[in-house]
């Protein structure tokens, strides 16, 4: 018997739906960008996130089921991102999920957004390079995105603990803020990677390396000082009327971030005896980070394809299949980082 879940994700500025079978197969995955909805339904979608979600939810749910070739009777559960995220946006997804669960008599499975990111690694497209095998336990998981930089120790699906986190800025946040300091367009992550790719070794060598915060004795991270160091160098150059070598600075910055992330993740994996490392979240799409992790870690490093690194509903559906915590229909969203990622109910 297969287990099929319709998953909804609306924690940020996109409304996404997916149907996942047995925590592996992506039967459908739809993200409500304007283009997709426009192509299907020919409507103009307003910009404001919460209201946009409200208009997108019915078309997205319908498009997701159509794309999967399934009807409501083929589903076994409804999953939804409960938080963290923007309260108004989350409410739209959670209430749509509650309504669908109630109307169809299906169980409702709330999922923590970060748990969702991790479980992108269990989906078929992330297994392709690994003979279709799921990530082996025990494992160390690095979640690295605009809002999060956290390390988890997963002994199995039930025993998961957060062992480290950023004490100030998330890695993705540092990418975006430094991108802005260097005059690069938003979002900073891909722009910094692109700019860094244009720097020659000679020009990089002409710049002193940027600092790295190691926070010895912990699995925690800190990227605030690195951001401030770039700011100070930019200010100093401006004051002296000197131009900034943007590609070289981007390369030095990326090198600092990826070095710390790879080194600390590898050390955690070594000290705990992990069988593999999984990476998730938007910054996992960064090629330099993937290379640094694979160079440094002695165990296999798994990273989902880029489309499963950014926000999507497929990962929520995957997490729901492995962590079937059913919730009553009166659950509320949480818009903050309050609850633990893997507390009961998440």
């Amino acid at each position, binding site marked *: 018997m297969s287990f099929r879940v319709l998953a909804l994700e609306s924690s940020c500025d996109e409304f996404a739906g997916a149907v996942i079978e047995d925590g592996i197969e992506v039967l459908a995955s739809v993200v409500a960008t304007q283009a997709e909805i426009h192509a299907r339904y020919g409507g103009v979608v307003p910009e404001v996130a919460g209201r946009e979600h409200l208009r997108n939810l019915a078309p997205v749910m319908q498009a997701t089921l159509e794309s999967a070739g399934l009807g409501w009777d083929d589903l076994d559960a409804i999953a939804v991102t409960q938080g963290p995220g923007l309260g108004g946006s989350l409410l739209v997804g959670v209430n749509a999920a509650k309504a669908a669960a109630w109307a169809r008599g299906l169980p409702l499975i709330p999922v923590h957004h970060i748990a969702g990111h991790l479980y992108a690694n269990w989906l078929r497209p992330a297994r392709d390079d690994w003979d279709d095998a799921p990530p082996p336990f025990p494992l160390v998981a690095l979640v690295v995105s605009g809002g999060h930089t956290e390390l988890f120790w997963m002994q199995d699906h039930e025993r998961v603990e957060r062992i480290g986190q950023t004490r100030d800025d998330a890695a993705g946040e540092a990418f975006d803020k430094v991108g802005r300091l260097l005059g690069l367009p938003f979002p900073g992550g891909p722009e910094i990677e692109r700019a860094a790719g244009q720097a020659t070794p000679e020009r990089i060598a002409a710049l002193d390396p940027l600092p790295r915060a190691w926070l010895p004795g912990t699995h925690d991270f800190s990227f605030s000082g690195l951001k401030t160091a770039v700011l100070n160098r930019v200010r100093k150059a401006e004051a002296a009327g000197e131009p900034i070598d943007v590609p070289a600075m981007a390369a030095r910055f990326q090198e600092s971030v990826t070095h710390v992330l790879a080194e600390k993740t590898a050390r955690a994996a070594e000290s705990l005896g992990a069988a593999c490392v999984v990476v998730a979240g938007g910054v996992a799409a960064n090629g330099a980070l993937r290379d640094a992790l694979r160079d440094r870690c002695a165990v296999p490093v798994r990273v989902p394809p880029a489309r499963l690194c950014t926000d999507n509903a497929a990962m929520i559906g995957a997490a729901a299949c492995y962590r079937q915590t059913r919730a009553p229909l009166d659950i509320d969203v949480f818009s903050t*980082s*309050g609850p633990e990622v893997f507390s009961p109910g998440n």
Partner: protein
Amino acid sequence: MSTTPPPLRLTCDDAEATRGVGALVGRFAEPGATVLLQGDLGAGKTVFAQGVGRGLEAPTVVNSPTFVLVNEHLGGRLPMRHADLYRLDDLDQITELGLDQAAEGGILLVEWPERGQGALPDDCLHVHFSPLADDVSEDQLDASPRELVLTSNGRNAETLLSQLAQSLSPVSA
């Protein structure tokens, strides 16, 4: 009749000193207190918020809410909500956060408040951060001095600022 307390100017020699001022705010703040944290990138806003968390004895790690927009820290003397408007440039989005109500029963900290004028509580303590040294070693960023200027707007903030002024000896008045 209360008189508006004068601005409180403080020099913090390092990040720990900035946390110390934040901790006093955490210790003295009454439910409903709103504190606006204004200053450039790397000026010490999140470090100050870490201090407020410490003063409240909140058990959670206070890190940057730039992407999450609002972090909630429970388990301390008062609930603390820590907001960051850096990514938001649309007043509608900021209004949607409901920050005008977010201080109720707890303490609200707002980074980059200049982006949310009109969507924030009127009664607030304002903390302005500026770096004092131009040339700081990159290994010693935590030890670079900052000037903090605290001003109040409204009755509750005036009371809080007066308490802070009494327990601190300003470098210059």
